[in-house]
């Protein structure tokens, strides 16, 4: 088994404080119709939704609000079908799953509408397609409008999980994207660029802790 022949060797520690076009190609399958195959899982709703996104090669995001202090763990079934069928199956199990399609992106919430922070309208936001997703997101949360909402709702924004570095590439002016009068949610979908997935978690348990990660880059 190759599994026994691979090992990850920690070597050094560096410290610090801180289109498919129509030319002869089939049209892409709409996100909700894409086939998915997910194995039985014990875990959180967010992780199961993430597994659906990965299996369906979806881009977009997942927003989960939790009234408990910890992720609620549940048993989720094996599922083979399409994305919409997977969401409907979750609904029959008693889970709140609401989805909306924005272009080629899919956004799933466990509340009827997206969290307040994601609905904030930002007057102007710029990011580079050449910079890490975490940097663009960090700048987005630092816009005056998002920052004001974080203060108003007394949200404590922890994280994100940064993961492993990606090679640096020199940027060009064409990499810069400027968005005007866009919601935080739409900006996240633009940053996702048709391939990445964001995960917003908000815990309402004593203190309002939020995190915004990119589990699929």
């Amino acid at each position, binding site marked *: 088994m190759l599994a026994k022949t691979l090992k990850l060797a920690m070597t050094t520690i560096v*410290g610090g404080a801180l289109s498919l076009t129509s030319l002869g190609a089939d049209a892409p399958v709409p996100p909700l119709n894409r086939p998915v195959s997910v194995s039985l899982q014990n875990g959180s709703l967010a992780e199961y939704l993430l597994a659906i996104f990965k299996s369906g090669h979806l881009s977009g995001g997942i927003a989960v609000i939790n009234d408990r202090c910890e992720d609620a763990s549940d048993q989720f079934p094996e599922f083979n079908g399409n994305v919409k069928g997977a969401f409907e199956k979750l609904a029959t199990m008693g889970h709140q799953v609401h989805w909306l399609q924005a272009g080629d992106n899919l956004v799933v919430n466990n509340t009827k509408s997206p969290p307040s922070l994601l609905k904030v309208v930002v007057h102007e936001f710029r990011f580079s397609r050449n910079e890490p997703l975490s940097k663009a997101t960090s700048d987005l949360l630092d816009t005056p409008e998002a920052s004001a909402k974080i203060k108003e709702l007394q949200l404590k924004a*922890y994280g994100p999980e940064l993961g492993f570095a990606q*090679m640096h590439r020199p940027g060009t002016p064409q990499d810069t994207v400027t968005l005007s009068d866009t919601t935080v949610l739409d900006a996240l979908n633009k940053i996702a660029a048709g391939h990445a997935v964001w995960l917003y978690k908000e815990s309402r348990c004593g203190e309002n802790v939020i995190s915004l990660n990119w589990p699929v880059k």
Partner: protein
Amino acid sequence: MDIYGNILLSGECGVYRNIAYFLVDQEVPAQTIQGNYTLVENFSNYTTDVVGLTVPPTQDNPIEYAQTMLGDTQFFGRKASSGCPGSNDHESFDQEFTVQLDSSHSYGLTMVNVVDRGYYSGTATVNVTISTP
């Protein structure tokens, strides 16, 4: 900032550490393995002193052939605009890895790390300890 000099975040208050790895085989001497693959991180056994903070999600990291050295950035902190972490805010978890070549070829790595990060009685800390093997 990661090992390549990319700025990952701005306006944050916290602590981070970059850990460099090579993916190698078990030959003697070990040979570095390069390739295009996804390095999947899984996190478990999560504990924290911060009420409401939860285990990080499973993380897919795209790795390119040109990357001989792999750099993991461990960060614990908050948006500075919402305040800095408290003097005893920290978290701990196990970190496991899988190399995923495609949808039908995945290889679990034997190494398991224990990560402790955050502030312990005011001391900024990021410790990554190999617990297995």
